[in-house]
Protein backbone atom coordinates (compact mmCIF):
# COMPACT_ATOMS: atom_id res chain seq x y z
CA UNK A 1 0.00 0.00 0.00
CA UNK A 2 1.73 3.13 -1.10
CA UNK A 3 0.61 6.22 0.61
CA UNK A 4 1.22 9.09 -1.73
CA UNK A 5 0.52 7.65 -5.15
CA UNK A 6 -3.05 6.59 -4.67
CA UNK A 7 -4.04 9.19 -2.12
CA UNK A 8 -5.66 11.58 -4.55
CA UNK A 9 -7.77 9.21 -6.61
CA UNK A 10 -10.94 7.25 -6.26
CA UNK A 11 -13.77 6.44 -8.60
CA UNK A 12 -17.47 5.82 -8.27
CA UNK A 13 -19.54 3.79 -10.69
CA UNK A 14 -23.24 3.14 -10.36
CA UNK A 15 -24.49 -0.17 -11.72
CA UNK A 16 -28.05 0.66 -12.66
CA UNK A 17 -29.31 -2.93 -12.99
CA UNK A 18 -28.29 -4.20 -9.57
CA UNK A 19 -28.43 -0.83 -7.86
CA UNK A 20 -24.84 -1.19 -6.64
CA UNK A 21 -22.35 1.60 -6.22
CA UNK A 22 -18.86 0.33 -7.02
CA UNK A 23 -16.19 2.33 -5.26
CA UNK A 24 -12.50 1.95 -5.94
CA UNK A 25 -9.30 3.73 -5.02
CA UNK A 26 -8.60 5.67 -1.85
CA UNK A 27 -11.42 6.95 0.33
CA UNK A 28 -9.49 9.21 2.67
CA UNK A 29 -9.60 12.66 4.14
CA UNK A 30 -8.00 13.92 0.90
CA UNK A 31 -10.80 12.62 -1.26
CA UNK A 32 -13.71 12.98 1.16
CA UNK A 33 -14.96 16.28 -0.22
CA UNK A 34 -15.21 14.86 -3.76
CA UNK A 35 -16.65 11.60 -2.44
CA UNK A 36 -19.39 13.44 -0.60
CA UNK A 37 -20.38 15.50 -3.59
CA UNK A 38 -20.43 12.45 -5.90
CA UNK A 39 -22.47 10.44 -3.42
CA UNK A 40 -24.98 13.23 -3.01
CA UNK A 41 -25.54 13.32 -6.78
CA UNK A 42 -26.50 9.64 -6.82
CA UNK A 43 -30.25 9.11 -7.10
CA UNK A 44 -31.46 7.75 -3.78
CA UNK A 45 -34.08 5.28 -4.93
CA UNK A 46 -31.81 3.29 -7.23
CA UNK A 47 -29.15 2.28 -4.71
CA UNK A 48 -29.31 -1.17 -3.14
CA UNK A 49 -25.77 -1.71 -1.88
CA UNK A 50 -22.26 -0.31 -1.90
CA UNK A 51 -19.36 -2.43 -3.07
CA UNK A 52 -16.01 -1.72 -1.46
CA UNK A 53 -14.01 -4.60 -2.97
CA UNK A 54 -11.69 -2.33 -4.97
CA UNK A 55 -11.10 0.25 -2.25
CA UNK A 56 -7.35 0.40 -1.63
CA UNK A 57 -7.39 2.64 1.38
CA UNK A 58 -10.12 3.68 3.77
CA UNK A 59 -9.69 6.04 6.71
CA UNK A 60 -12.13 7.45 9.25
CA UNK A 61 -13.06 10.34 6.96
CA UNK A 62 -14.00 7.95 4.13
CA UNK A 63 -15.86 5.66 6.52
CA UNK A 64 -17.74 8.62 7.91
CA UNK A 65 -18.81 9.77 4.44
CA UNK A 66 -20.08 6.26 3.59
CA UNK A 67 -21.98 5.89 6.85
CA UNK A 68 -23.42 9.35 6.52
CA UNK A 69 -24.69 8.45 3.03
CA UNK A 70 -26.10 5.17 4.31
CA UNK A 71 -27.87 6.93 7.18
CA UNK A 72 -29.57 9.40 4.85
CA UNK A 73 -30.97 6.68 2.55
CA UNK A 74 -31.79 4.46 5.55
CA UNK A 75 -34.26 1.64 4.89
CA UNK A 76 -33.76 0.57 1.29
CA UNK A 77 -29.99 0.54 1.44
CA UNK A 78 -28.34 -2.76 2.29
CA UNK A 79 -25.01 -3.00 3.98
CA UNK A 80 -21.60 -2.70 2.39
CA UNK A 81 -20.21 -5.59 0.43
CA UNK A 82 -16.70 -6.67 -0.30
CA UNK A 83 -15.15 -4.73 2.56
CA UNK A 84 -11.89 -6.09 3.91
CA UNK A 85 -11.64 -7.09 7.55
CA UNK A 86 -9.89 -3.85 8.49
CA UNK A 87 -12.41 -1.75 6.60
CA UNK A 88 -15.21 -3.65 8.32
CA UNK A 89 -13.68 -2.95 11.73
CA UNK A 90 -13.10 0.69 10.90
CA UNK A 91 -16.68 1.13 9.69
CA UNK A 92 -17.95 -0.41 12.90
CA UNK A 93 -15.74 1.81 15.07
CA UNK A 94 -16.81 4.95 13.25
CA UNK A 95 -20.47 3.92 13.36
CA UNK A 96 -20.27 3.47 17.11
CA UNK A 97 -18.56 6.80 17.51
CA UNK A 98 -20.83 8.87 15.26
CA UNK A 99 -21.46 12.01 17.29
CA UNK A 100 -24.96 12.73 18.43
CA UNK A 101 -25.63 16.35 17.76
CA UNK A 102 -26.75 18.31 20.75
CA UNK A 103 -27.96 21.86 20.58
CA UNK A 104 -25.86 24.19 22.71
CA UNK A 105 -27.95 26.09 25.23
CA UNK A 106 -29.56 28.97 23.34
CA UNK A 107 -28.65 32.50 24.33
CA UNK A 108 -31.73 34.44 25.17
CA UNK A 109 -31.83 37.56 23.01
CA UNK A 110 -34.86 39.24 24.50
CA UNK A 111 -34.80 42.65 26.19
CA UNK A 112 -35.28 41.00 29.54
CA UNK A 113 -32.14 38.90 29.07
CA UNK A 114 -30.22 41.99 28.01
CA UNK A 115 -31.43 43.80 31.11
CA UNK A 116 -30.45 40.80 33.19
CA UNK A 117 -26.92 40.78 31.75
CA UNK A 118 -26.65 44.54 32.19
CA UNK A 119 -27.72 44.25 35.81
CA UNK A 120 -25.18 41.52 36.42
CA UNK A 121 -22.44 43.66 34.90
CA UNK A 122 -23.33 46.61 37.12
CA UNK A 123 -23.53 44.35 40.13
CA UNK A 124 -20.14 42.76 39.39
CA UNK A 125 -18.73 46.28 38.96
CA UNK A 126 -20.04 47.22 42.40
CA UNK A 127 -18.69 44.00 43.86
CA UNK A 128 -15.31 44.78 42.28
CA UNK A 129 -15.27 48.18 44.02
CA UNK A 130 -16.27 46.47 47.22
CA UNK A 131 -13.46 43.93 46.87
CA UNK A 132 -10.92 46.70 46.26
CA UNK A 133 -12.15 48.49 49.37
CA UNK A 134 -11.82 45.25 51.29
CA UNK A 135 -8.22 44.88 50.16
CA UNK A 136 -7.52 48.46 51.20
CA UNK A 137 -8.99 47.51 54.58
CA UNK A 138 -6.80 44.41 54.81
CA UNK A 139 -3.74 46.49 54.03
CA UNK A 140 -4.55 49.14 56.65
CA UNK A 141 -5.42 46.53 59.25
CA UNK A 142 -2.20 44.58 58.71
CA UNK A 143 -0.24 47.83 58.69
CA UNK A 144 -1.74 48.78 62.08
CA UNK A 145 -0.91 45.29 63.30
CA UNK A 146 2.66 45.68 62.11
CA UNK A 147 2.92 48.86 64.17
CA UNK A 148 1.74 47.04 67.28
CA UNK A 149 3.77 43.87 66.61
CA UNK A 150 6.90 45.04 64.80
CA UNK A 151 8.38 41.55 64.93
CA UNK A 152 5.86 40.32 62.36
CA UNK A 153 6.87 43.00 59.91
CA UNK A 154 9.27 42.01 57.13
CA UNK A 155 11.75 44.85 56.83
CA UNK A 156 14.00 43.02 54.35
CA UNK A 157 11.04 42.50 52.09
CA UNK A 158 10.10 46.18 52.32
CA UNK A 159 13.63 47.29 51.40
CA UNK A 160 13.67 44.84 48.49
CA UNK A 161 10.39 46.17 47.14
CA UNK A 162 11.51 49.78 47.64
CA UNK A 163 14.45 48.99 45.39
CA UNK A 164 12.23 47.24 42.83
CA UNK A 165 9.47 49.85 42.60
CA UNK A 166 11.51 52.94 43.46
CA UNK A 167 15.19 52.86 42.69
CA UNK A 168 14.89 50.86 39.51
CA UNK A 169 12.17 53.17 38.19
CA UNK A 170 14.27 56.33 38.62
CA UNK A 171 15.91 56.35 35.15
CA UNK A 172 12.68 55.88 33.20
CA UNK A 173 10.72 58.35 35.35
CA UNK A 174 13.46 60.99 35.17
CA UNK A 175 13.83 60.64 31.41
CA UNK A 176 10.07 60.81 30.89
CA UNK A 177 9.75 63.97 33.02
CA UNK A 178 12.75 65.61 31.36
CA UNK A 179 11.20 65.08 27.93
CA UNK A 180 7.84 66.39 29.12
CA UNK A 181 9.60 69.54 30.34
CA UNK A 182 11.30 69.92 26.95
CA UNK A 183 8.01 69.46 25.09
CA UNK A 184 6.16 71.98 27.29
CA UNK A 185 8.87 74.59 26.84
CA UNK A 186 8.97 74.10 23.11
CA UNK A 187 5.21 74.13 22.58
CA UNK A 188 4.70 76.96 25.09
CA UNK A 189 7.33 79.16 23.52
CA UNK A 190 5.86 78.91 20.00
CA UNK A 191 2.42 79.86 21.30
CA UNK A 192 3.47 82.55 23.77
CA UNK A 193 5.88 84.21 21.32
CA UNK A 194 2.87 85.38 19.29
CA UNK A 195 1.93 87.60 22.23
CA UNK A 196 5.50 88.50 23.10
CA UNK A 197 4.97 86.77 26.41
CA UNK A 198 7.82 84.29 26.18
CA UNK A 199 8.82 84.73 29.77
CA UNK A 200 5.54 83.26 30.96
CA UNK A 201 6.74 79.94 29.62
CA UNK A 202 8.39 79.53 33.01
CA UNK A 203 5.02 79.70 34.76
CA UNK A 204 3.51 77.36 32.24
CA UNK A 205 6.18 74.74 32.82
CA UNK A 206 6.32 75.17 36.56
CA UNK A 207 2.61 74.98 37.20
CA UNK A 208 1.83 72.17 34.81
CA UNK A 209 4.77 70.02 35.85
CA UNK A 210 4.59 70.63 39.57
CA UNK A 211 0.84 70.54 39.92
CA UNK A 212 -0.26 67.90 37.44
CA UNK A 213 2.03 66.26 34.96
CA UNK A 214 5.00 65.30 37.10
CA UNK A 215 3.09 63.17 39.53
CA UNK A 216 0.38 61.98 37.15
CA UNK A 217 2.77 60.65 34.52
CA UNK A 218 5.00 59.13 37.19
CA UNK A 219 1.98 57.34 38.61
CA UNK A 220 1.01 56.09 35.16
CA UNK A 221 4.50 54.73 34.53
CA UNK A 222 4.60 53.14 37.96
CA UNK A 223 1.15 51.68 37.39
CA UNK A 224 2.38 50.06 34.19
CA UNK A 225 5.60 48.80 35.74
CA UNK A 226 4.57 47.90 39.24
CA UNK A 227 0.89 46.96 39.19
CA UNK A 228 1.71 44.35 36.55
CA UNK A 229 4.72 43.14 38.54
CA UNK A 230 2.61 42.79 41.71
CA UNK A 231 -0.10 40.90 39.86
CA UNK A 232 2.39 38.62 38.12
CA UNK A 233 4.31 37.85 41.30
CA UNK A 234 1.28 37.26 43.54
CA UNK A 235 -0.65 35.61 40.71
CA UNK A 236 2.04 33.05 39.98
CA UNK A 237 2.23 32.26 43.69
CA UNK A 238 -1.53 31.82 43.69
CA UNK A 239 -1.28 29.58 40.64
CA UNK A 240 1.25 27.26 42.24
CA UNK A 241 -0.81 27.16 45.47
CA UNK A 242 1.97 28.94 47.36
CA UNK A 243 -0.60 31.29 48.89
CA UNK A 244 -2.59 28.33 50.19
CA UNK A 245 0.63 26.81 51.52
CA UNK A 246 1.39 30.10 53.33
CA UNK A 247 -2.05 30.07 54.92
CA UNK A 248 -1.67 26.49 56.14
CA UNK A 249 1.71 27.43 57.65
CA UNK A 250 0.08 30.28 59.54
CA UNK A 251 1.61 33.02 57.39
CA UNK A 252 -0.81 35.76 56.46
CA UNK A 253 -0.60 36.79 52.80
CA UNK A 254 -1.77 40.28 53.75
CA UNK A 255 1.11 40.78 56.14
CA UNK A 256 3.74 39.00 54.08
CA UNK A 257 2.82 40.01 50.55
CA UNK A 258 0.60 43.09 50.53
CA UNK A 259 2.08 45.24 53.32
CA UNK A 260 5.70 45.28 52.06
CA UNK A 261 4.61 45.94 48.48
CA UNK A 262 2.02 48.65 49.06
CA UNK A 263 4.08 50.30 51.77
CA UNK A 264 7.09 50.35 49.44
CA UNK A 265 4.93 52.11 46.86
CA UNK A 266 3.64 54.57 49.48
CA UNK A 267 7.20 55.50 50.38
CA UNK A 268 8.68 55.54 46.91
CA UNK A 269 6.00 57.20 44.77
CA UNK A 270 6.32 60.66 46.42
CA UNK A 271 10.09 60.40 46.01
CA UNK A 272 9.71 59.44 42.36
CA UNK A 273 7.27 62.31 41.95
CA UNK A 274 9.81 64.73 43.39
CA UNK A 275 12.50 63.40 41.06
CA UNK A 276 10.07 63.80 38.14
CA UNK A 277 9.37 67.43 39.18
CA UNK A 278 13.07 68.25 39.26
CA UNK A 279 13.78 66.51 35.96
CA UNK A 280 10.77 68.22 34.35
CA UNK A 281 11.87 71.69 35.48
CA UNK A 282 15.41 70.93 34.35
CA UNK A 283 14.21 69.88 30.90
CA UNK A 284 12.00 72.98 30.66
CA UNK A 285 14.81 75.27 31.75
CA UNK A 286 17.22 73.76 29.27
CA UNK A 287 14.79 74.14 26.38
CA UNK A 288 13.87 77.70 27.39
CA UNK A 289 17.54 78.60 27.43
CA UNK A 290 18.21 77.09 24.01
CA UNK A 291 15.00 78.15 22.30
CA UNK A 292 14.06 81.42 24.01
CA UNK A 293 17.35 82.52 25.50
CA UNK A 294 15.97 82.58 29.05
CA UNK A 295 19.09 82.03 31.12
CA UNK A 296 19.01 79.52 33.98
CA UNK A 297 19.41 82.37 36.47
CA UNK A 298 16.43 84.19 35.02
CA UNK A 299 14.44 80.94 34.93
CA UNK A 300 15.18 80.39 38.63
CA UNK A 301 14.24 83.93 39.62
CA UNK A 302 11.02 83.78 37.65
CA UNK A 303 10.26 80.31 39.09
CA UNK A 304 10.71 81.44 42.69
CA UNK A 305 8.83 84.71 42.22
CA UNK A 306 6.00 83.54 40.03
CA UNK A 307 5.12 80.12 41.29
CA UNK A 308 3.49 79.55 44.63
CA UNK A 309 5.02 76.72 46.60
CA UNK A 310 1.52 75.35 47.14
CA UNK A 311 1.65 73.86 43.63
CA UNK A 312 4.37 71.48 44.76
CA UNK A 313 2.30 70.36 47.73
CA UNK A 314 -0.84 69.98 45.65
CA UNK A 315 1.13 67.69 43.36
CA UNK A 316 2.86 65.62 45.99
CA UNK A 317 -0.28 65.29 48.10
CA UNK A 318 -1.75 63.08 45.43
CA UNK A 319 1.21 60.69 45.42
CA UNK A 320 0.22 58.54 48.42
CA UNK A 321 -3.33 58.18 47.09
CA UNK A 322 -2.06 57.09 43.69
CA UNK A 323 0.38 54.69 45.38
CA UNK A 324 -2.45 53.14 47.38
CA UNK A 325 -4.61 52.73 44.26
CA UNK A 326 -1.81 51.08 42.26
CA UNK A 327 -0.77 48.77 45.07
CA UNK A 328 -4.27 47.65 46.02
CA UNK A 329 -5.32 47.08 42.40
CA UNK A 330 -2.14 45.09 41.70
CA UNK A 331 -2.43 42.89 44.79
CA UNK A 332 -6.16 42.33 44.33
CA UNK A 333 -5.72 41.29 40.68
CA UNK A 334 -2.93 38.91 41.69
CA UNK A 335 -5.23 37.18 44.17
CA UNK A 336 -7.89 36.69 41.49
CA UNK A 337 -5.61 34.53 39.33
CA UNK A 338 -6.87 30.97 38.88
CA UNK A 339 -4.83 27.87 38.28
CA UNK A 340 -4.21 28.44 34.58
CA UNK A 341 -1.71 30.54 32.71
CA UNK A 342 -4.32 32.43 30.67
CA UNK A 343 -5.92 33.92 33.76
CA UNK A 344 -2.50 35.14 34.90
CA UNK A 345 -2.01 36.99 31.63
CA UNK A 346 -5.54 38.35 31.66
CA UNK A 347 -5.36 39.58 35.23
CA UNK A 348 -1.96 41.19 34.65
CA UNK A 349 -3.22 43.29 31.79
CA UNK A 350 -6.46 43.97 33.70
CA UNK A 351 -4.44 45.25 36.64
CA UNK A 352 -2.52 47.72 34.48
CA UNK A 353 -5.63 49.06 32.74
CA UNK A 354 -7.58 49.34 35.99
CA UNK A 355 -4.69 50.99 37.84
CA UNK A 356 -4.07 53.61 35.14
CA UNK A 357 -7.77 54.33 34.76
CA UNK A 358 -8.25 54.66 38.51
CA UNK A 359 -5.24 56.96 38.82
CA UNK A 360 -6.63 59.29 36.14
CA UNK A 361 -10.10 59.32 37.73
CA UNK A 362 -8.53 60.10 41.11
CA UNK A 363 -6.53 62.92 39.52
CA UNK A 364 -9.70 64.42 38.05
CA UNK A 365 -11.40 64.26 41.46
CA UNK A 366 -8.38 65.99 43.01
CA UNK A 367 -8.49 68.77 40.40
CA UNK A 368 -12.14 69.51 41.16
CA UNK A 369 -11.49 69.33 44.87
CA UNK A 370 -8.55 71.74 44.82
CA UNK A 371 -10.38 74.11 42.49
CA UNK A 372 -13.34 74.22 44.88
CA UNK A 373 -11.26 74.94 47.97
CA UNK A 374 -9.26 77.41 45.93
CA UNK A 375 -5.70 76.19 46.20
Amino acid at each position, binding site marked *: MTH*DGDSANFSLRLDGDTGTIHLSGALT*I*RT*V*TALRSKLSSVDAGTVRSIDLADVTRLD*TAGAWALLDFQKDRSADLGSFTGASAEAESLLRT*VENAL*PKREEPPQQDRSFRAWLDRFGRRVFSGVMFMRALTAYLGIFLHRLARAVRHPSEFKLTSLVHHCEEVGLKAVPIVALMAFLIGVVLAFQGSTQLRQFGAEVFVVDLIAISVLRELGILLTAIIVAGRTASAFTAAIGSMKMREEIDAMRTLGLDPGMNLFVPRILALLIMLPILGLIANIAGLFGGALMSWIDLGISPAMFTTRLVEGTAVSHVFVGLLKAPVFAMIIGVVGCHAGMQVQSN*AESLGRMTSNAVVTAIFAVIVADAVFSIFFARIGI
Partner: protein
Amino acid sequence: MTEREVVIRLRGIRNQFGRQVVHEDLDLDVYRGEIIGVVGGSGTGKSVLLRTIAGLQKPAAGSVDVLGTDVLNADEDTRQKLENRWGVMFQDGALFSSLTVRENVEVPMRAITGLDPQIRSDLADLKISMVGLQYLAGDKYPSELSGGMRKRAGLARALALDPDIVFLDEPTAGLDPIGAAAFDELIRDLSHSLGLTVFLVTHDLDTLHATCDRIAVLAERKVLVTGSMADMLEVEHPWVHEYFHGPRARAAVPDKPMKGD
Protein backbone atom coordinates in the same frame (compact mmCIF):
# COMPACT_ATOMS: atom_id res chain seq x y z
CA MET B 1 4.98 -16.03 11.49
CA THR B 2 5.66 -13.53 8.76
CA GLU B 3 8.31 -10.88 9.04
CA ARG B 4 6.66 -7.81 10.56
CA GLU B 5 7.08 -4.37 9.01
CA VAL B 6 9.35 -2.07 10.98
CA VAL B 7 7.87 1.43 11.16
CA ILE B 8 10.41 3.07 13.47
CA ARG B 9 14.05 2.10 13.29
CA LEU B 10 16.57 3.76 15.60
CA ARG B 11 20.27 3.00 15.20
CA GLY B 12 23.18 4.21 17.29
CA ILE B 13 21.32 7.17 18.80
CA ARG B 14 23.38 9.44 21.00
CA ASN B 15 21.76 12.31 22.89
CA GLN B 16 23.63 14.58 25.21
CA PHE B 17 23.03 17.86 26.97
CA GLY B 18 26.34 19.54 27.65
CA ARG B 19 28.46 16.84 29.22
CA GLN B 20 25.56 14.74 30.37
CA VAL B 21 25.05 11.82 27.99
CA VAL B 22 21.45 10.61 28.03
CA HIS B 23 21.53 8.01 25.28
CA GLU B 24 24.54 6.23 23.87
CA ASP B 25 24.44 3.80 20.98
CA LEU B 26 20.72 3.22 21.40
CA ASP B 27 18.91 0.86 19.00
CA LEU B 28 15.19 0.22 18.84
CA ASP B 29 12.72 -1.25 16.35
CA VAL B 30 8.99 -0.65 16.49
CA TYR B 31 6.70 -2.87 14.39
CA ARG B 32 3.51 -1.91 12.60
CA GLY B 33 0.34 -2.22 14.62
CA GLU B 34 1.90 -2.82 17.99
CA ILE B 35 1.63 -0.82 21.17
CA ILE B 36 5.09 -0.35 22.60
CA GLY B 37 5.60 1.07 26.06
CA VAL B 38 8.88 2.72 26.99
CA VAL B 39 9.76 2.66 30.68
CA GLY B 40 12.75 3.77 32.62
CA GLY B 41 13.74 5.58 35.78
CA SER B 42 13.51 9.36 36.09
CA GLY B 43 16.16 11.03 33.99
CA THR B 44 16.77 8.08 31.67
CA GLY B 45 15.51 10.14 28.75
CA LYS B 46 12.17 8.54 27.92
CA SER B 47 10.64 11.80 26.78
CA VAL B 48 13.89 12.75 25.07
CA LEU B 49 13.65 9.53 23.06
CA LEU B 50 10.09 10.37 22.03
CA ARG B 51 11.15 13.88 21.07
CA THR B 52 14.06 12.46 19.07
CA ILE B 53 11.80 10.22 17.00
CA ALA B 54 9.27 13.00 16.47
CA GLY B 55 12.06 15.25 15.21
CA LEU B 56 11.85 17.75 18.07
CA GLN B 57 15.30 16.91 19.37
CA LYS B 58 18.27 16.39 17.09
CA PRO B 59 20.51 13.60 18.31
CA ALA B 60 24.27 14.08 18.36
CA ALA B 61 24.76 10.86 16.42
CA GLY B 62 22.77 8.01 14.95
CA SER B 63 19.90 7.61 12.54
CA VAL B 64 16.14 7.80 12.93
CA ASP B 65 14.07 6.06 10.31
CA VAL B 66 10.28 6.42 10.47
CA LEU B 67 8.04 4.77 7.85
CA GLY B 68 11.01 4.46 5.56
CA THR B 69 12.00 8.11 5.78
CA ASP B 70 15.26 9.28 7.28
CA VAL B 71 13.87 11.89 9.69
CA LEU B 72 17.15 13.68 10.32
CA ASN B 73 18.13 14.25 6.71
CA ALA B 74 14.74 14.59 5.03
CA ASP B 75 13.96 17.77 3.12
CA GLU B 76 11.11 20.06 4.06
CA ASP B 77 8.44 18.46 1.83
CA THR B 78 9.23 14.90 2.84
CA ARG B 79 9.17 15.87 6.49
CA GLN B 80 5.83 17.61 6.04
CA LYS B 81 4.38 14.45 4.45
CA LEU B 82 5.78 12.37 7.27
CA GLU B 83 4.36 14.67 9.94
CA ASN B 84 0.90 14.09 8.49
CA ARG B 85 1.39 10.39 9.12
CA TRP B 86 2.15 10.61 12.81
CA GLY B 87 0.41 12.29 15.70
CA VAL B 88 1.84 13.34 19.04
CA MET B 89 -0.09 13.71 22.28
CA PHE B 90 1.84 15.71 24.82
CA GLN B 91 1.55 15.26 28.54
CA ASP B 92 -1.11 17.84 29.25
CA GLY B 93 -2.61 17.72 25.77
CA ALA B 94 -0.75 20.88 24.63
CA LEU B 95 -3.96 22.21 23.12
CA PHE B 96 -3.89 25.71 21.70
CA SER B 97 -5.50 27.73 24.44
CA SER B 98 -7.03 30.35 22.15
CA LEU B 99 -8.97 27.76 20.13
CA THR B 100 -11.93 25.61 21.08
CA VAL B 101 -11.47 21.85 21.20
CA ARG B 102 -13.13 21.47 17.79
CA GLU B 103 -10.86 24.12 16.26
CA ASN B 104 -7.87 22.40 17.85
CA VAL B 105 -8.77 19.12 16.18
CA GLU B 106 -9.30 20.94 12.89
CA VAL B 107 -5.81 22.49 12.92
CA PRO B 108 -4.00 19.52 11.30
CA MET B 109 -6.86 19.11 8.81
CA ARG B 110 -6.36 22.63 7.50
CA ALA B 111 -3.24 21.36 5.73
CA ILE B 112 -5.46 19.27 3.43
CA THR B 113 -6.21 21.32 0.35
CA GLY B 114 -9.78 21.40 -0.86
CA LEU B 115 -11.31 20.00 2.30
CA ASP B 116 -14.77 21.49 2.74
CA PRO B 117 -15.01 23.48 6.03
CA GLN B 118 -18.32 21.86 6.96
CA ILE B 119 -16.87 18.39 6.42
CA ARG B 120 -13.80 19.38 8.38
CA SER B 121 -15.92 20.44 11.29
CA ASP B 122 -18.01 17.25 11.09
CA LEU B 123 -14.85 15.14 11.02
CA ALA B 124 -13.53 17.01 14.05
CA ASP B 125 -16.80 16.17 15.84
CA LEU B 126 -16.30 12.54 14.88
CA LYS B 127 -12.77 12.49 16.30
CA ILE B 128 -13.96 14.18 19.48
CA SER B 129 -16.61 11.51 19.84
CA MET B 130 -14.12 8.71 19.06
CA VAL B 131 -11.94 9.66 22.00
CA GLY B 132 -14.97 9.54 24.25
CA LEU B 133 -15.73 13.23 24.73
CA GLN B 134 -19.24 14.68 24.74
CA TYR B 135 -20.45 16.49 21.64
CA LEU B 136 -20.65 19.81 23.49
CA ALA B 137 -17.02 19.51 24.65
CA GLY B 138 -16.12 20.59 21.11
CA ASP B 139 -17.30 24.13 21.84
CA LYS B 140 -15.25 24.45 25.02
CA TYR B 141 -11.87 26.03 25.47
CA PRO B 142 -9.01 23.96 26.91
CA SER B 143 -9.06 25.92 30.17
CA GLU B 144 -12.65 24.78 30.76
CA LEU B 145 -11.72 21.08 30.59
CA SER B 146 -10.43 18.72 33.26
CA GLY B 147 -6.98 17.14 32.91
CA GLY B 148 -8.39 13.87 31.60
CA MET B 149 -10.57 15.64 29.05
CA ARG B 150 -7.60 17.71 27.86
CA LYS B 151 -5.63 14.52 27.30
CA ARG B 152 -8.51 13.05 25.32
CA ALA B 153 -8.78 16.22 23.26
CA GLY B 154 -5.01 16.09 22.68
CA LEU B 155 -5.43 12.53 21.45
CA ALA B 156 -8.27 13.61 19.15
CA ARG B 157 -5.97 16.21 17.60
CA ALA B 158 -3.19 13.63 17.25
CA LEU B 159 -5.64 11.34 15.43
CA ALA B 160 -7.04 14.08 13.19
CA LEU B 161 -5.36 12.84 10.02
CA ASP B 162 -5.62 9.10 10.74
CA PRO B 163 -1.90 8.75 11.36
CA ASP B 164 -0.02 5.46 11.11
CA ILE B 165 1.82 6.13 14.36
CA VAL B 166 0.83 8.01 17.49
CA PHE B 167 3.26 9.05 20.18
CA LEU B 168 1.84 9.38 23.67
CA ASP B 169 3.83 11.08 26.41
CA GLU B 170 2.70 9.87 29.83
CA PRO B 171 -0.90 9.27 28.73
CA THR B 172 -2.22 8.45 32.19
CA ALA B 173 -0.09 10.73 34.38
CA GLY B 174 -2.25 12.84 36.66
CA LEU B 175 -5.45 10.89 36.03
CA ASP B 176 -7.39 9.12 38.74
CA PRO B 177 -7.37 5.30 38.52
CA ILE B 178 -10.80 5.17 36.86
CA GLY B 179 -9.89 7.81 34.29
CA ALA B 180 -6.52 6.16 33.70
CA ALA B 181 -8.11 2.74 33.16
CA ALA B 182 -10.62 4.27 30.74
CA PHE B 183 -7.78 5.93 28.86
CA ASP B 184 -5.85 2.63 28.67
CA GLU B 185 -8.90 0.99 27.20
CA LEU B 186 -9.35 3.83 24.73
CA ILE B 187 -5.77 3.50 23.49
CA ARG B 188 -6.17 -0.26 23.11
CA ASP B 189 -9.49 0.04 21.24
CA LEU B 190 -8.33 2.75 18.88
CA SER B 191 -5.09 0.95 18.15
CA HIS B 192 -7.00 -2.18 17.20
CA SER B 193 -9.76 -0.64 15.16
CA LEU B 194 -7.61 1.93 13.36
CA GLY B 195 -4.54 -0.27 12.97
CA LEU B 196 -2.45 2.30 14.82
CA THR B 197 1.11 1.83 15.93
CA VAL B 198 1.34 3.37 19.39
CA PHE B 199 4.58 4.49 20.99
CA LEU B 200 3.93 5.42 24.57
CA VAL B 201 6.16 6.63 27.33
CA THR B 202 4.89 5.90 30.79
CA HIS B 203 5.57 5.29 34.45
CA ASP B 204 2.31 3.55 34.98
CA LEU B 205 2.63 -0.20 35.43
CA ASP B 206 -1.11 -0.65 35.04
CA THR B 207 -0.95 1.02 31.62
CA LEU B 208 1.93 -1.22 30.60
CA HIS B 209 0.02 -4.25 31.69
CA ALA B 210 -3.31 -3.25 30.22
CA THR B 211 -2.26 -1.87 26.86
CA CYS B 212 1.24 -2.72 25.74
CA ASP B 213 2.14 -5.58 23.43
CA ARG B 214 5.81 -4.98 24.01
CA ILE B 215 7.83 -3.12 26.60
CA ALA B 216 11.19 -1.45 26.06
CA VAL B 217 13.24 -0.68 29.13
CA LEU B 218 15.58 2.30 29.05
CA ALA B 219 18.53 1.96 31.38
CA GLU B 220 22.26 2.49 31.20
CA ARG B 221 21.71 4.97 28.34
CA LYS B 222 20.25 2.43 25.94
CA VAL B 223 17.30 0.15 25.40
CA LEU B 224 18.34 -2.54 27.79
CA VAL B 225 15.73 -5.08 26.89
CA THR B 226 12.48 -5.37 24.98
CA GLY B 227 9.77 -7.97 25.29
CA SER B 228 6.37 -8.79 26.68
CA MET B 229 5.37 -8.38 30.31
CA ALA B 230 6.15 -12.06 30.86
CA ASP B 231 9.65 -11.59 29.46
CA MET B 232 10.22 -8.63 31.75
CA LEU B 233 9.57 -10.74 34.82
CA GLU B 234 12.44 -13.03 33.81
CA VAL B 235 15.05 -10.28 33.36
CA GLU B 236 17.89 -10.39 35.88
CA HIS B 237 19.04 -6.76 35.65
CA PRO B 238 18.66 -5.22 39.13
CA TRP B 239 16.67 -2.12 38.09
CA VAL B 240 14.35 -4.09 35.81
CA HIS B 241 13.87 -6.71 38.50
CA GLU B 242 13.08 -4.04 41.09
CA TYR B 243 10.70 -2.30 38.70
CA PHE B 244 8.68 -5.36 37.72
CA HIS B 245 8.85 -7.14 41.06
CA GLY B 246 8.41 -4.18 43.42
CA PRO B 247 5.34 -3.80 45.63
CA ARG B 248 3.52 -1.68 43.08
CA ALA B 249 4.30 -4.13 40.28
CA ARG B 250 2.82 -6.99 42.27
CA ALA B 251 -0.38 -5.02 42.57
CA ALA B 252 -0.49 -4.32 38.83
CA VAL B 253 0.38 -7.85 37.72
CA PRO B 254 -1.53 -10.05 40.15
CA ASP B 255 -0.81 -13.40 38.60
CA LYS B 256 2.47 -14.27 37.09
CA PRO B 257 1.65 -14.94 33.43
CA MET B 258 2.39 -18.39 32.11
CA LYS B 259 5.60 -18.83 30.20
CA GLY B 260 5.31 -18.77 26.45
CA ASP B 261 2.13 -16.80 26.72
